[in-house]
């Protein structure tokens, strides 16, 4: 099985499980806000799914963290590291 096919099968199984599991709650929920947030979260998941299936490395929140925190974190790590003789 090729990489892309395997990934698409994994995604299909996961999405089917999620929608099967959530269908009863979605039908019974009368709160439009809840449904709207649910849809937004699913859209975010689709963005990540496309990135996974096509191996595209889209920008995610780890890239933001990398930009802001990795530099200072490495500096702290270096400062606390005792050089080996």
């Amino acid at each position, binding site marked *: 099985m090729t990489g892309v096919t395997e990934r698409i099968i994994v995604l299909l199984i996961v999405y089917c499980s999620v929608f099967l599991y959530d269908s009863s709650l979605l039908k019974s929920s009368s709160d439009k806000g809840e449904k709207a947030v649910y849809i937004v979260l699913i859209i975010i998941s689709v963005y990540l799914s496309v990135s996974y299936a096509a191996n595209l490395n*889209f920008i995610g929140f780890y890239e933001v963290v990398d930009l802001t925190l990795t530099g200072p974190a490495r500096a702290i790590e270096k400062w606390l590291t005792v050089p080996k003789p």
Partner: protein
Amino acid sequence: MNKKETVSPQQMGVLFFTFMTGSSIINIPSPLIGKAGNGAWVSLLISGIFSMALLGCMLYLHRRYPDKTFVEYSRNLIGVWPTAILSLLPLSMMLQMLIGIILDIGLFMRSAMLRETPTYAFTSLIFMVAALSVRAGIEVIARMFLLIMILIAAFIAAVLLLAMENYDISFLIPVMPDGLKPILKGAFFSYGFPYAECFLFTMLFPYVKKGSNGKLNRAMFLALFLNIATLCISTICTIILFGPLAGVKKYSLYELARTIDVQEIITRIESVIGMSLIAGSYMKATITLYAISLYVSQLFKFKDYKLIVTPIALIAFLYTLVGFDSDMDWVEVVSVVHPLWVWPGFILPLAIIVTVALIRKPSS
């Protein structure tokens, strides 16, 4: 907030102990010894003392606002929009925690037990079970986790006792051969994982039965004390078994279990530690997913958190697949970035809210 569900202060204490000890007892010793050397247990004591201060702040806020979660009282104290903006920090950190806890299971299984199996085979199942548990509610979680935690504690205690014949106390000294810096490095690391993560319980305290503040304080501090003691014992046992190699072994408690050989009858029991890691991580992931779902639902003022549980689990699952280019990339995030990330993620929002709460007088 869903008012129907309540747990006793003792159950909250058990949940707290489970959350703090579940995965860290296996994941902490090796990297901590790698950073702090023989003084790893001193690092744990230092970070443990700081976590008591953090827990004190959380319990103070709960005493001031017993019926409210962090989102609800920060909305009262600083307003709706500042709360929404500030929430980006804890939410990103909580998502990182959820991804990390479950990815650790997958990486452990792939590196130690089932090398040819893809990581998603483990992570997807754990996410599914965690989502189901969160949907069942906090009462079910509290009852179930007590039983699992007793089993894990028994397994780990048995492994540490059975390995006793291989221990060499002389490996414990010198405690600080390179001075204070490695100890501080270890304390900084262990404060990030697991101690600062106790912030999540600001979302769970309102579920404790009313009028039991004193009991809750006792239960929480006792749980934290037991957690510090458990992690110190597990770290010390690793040091006195492996000596200078303790920091090099990837899953040191797992490796420790491999050395057990009692009369050629009790041998090869490392799978017991593997099971404990899976169960411990599952429990911690469940509590984290529960806290995230509550946080998001209260941010948007929903009546119920249950509908958004699975989409959040789905996003976290997909991040375990696309978030990192390699295992080394992930190791850097956990051991270098994570300890710093908890400061803007958890400590800063809590410090802001505590400061505003101290300045503002309680309303009658």
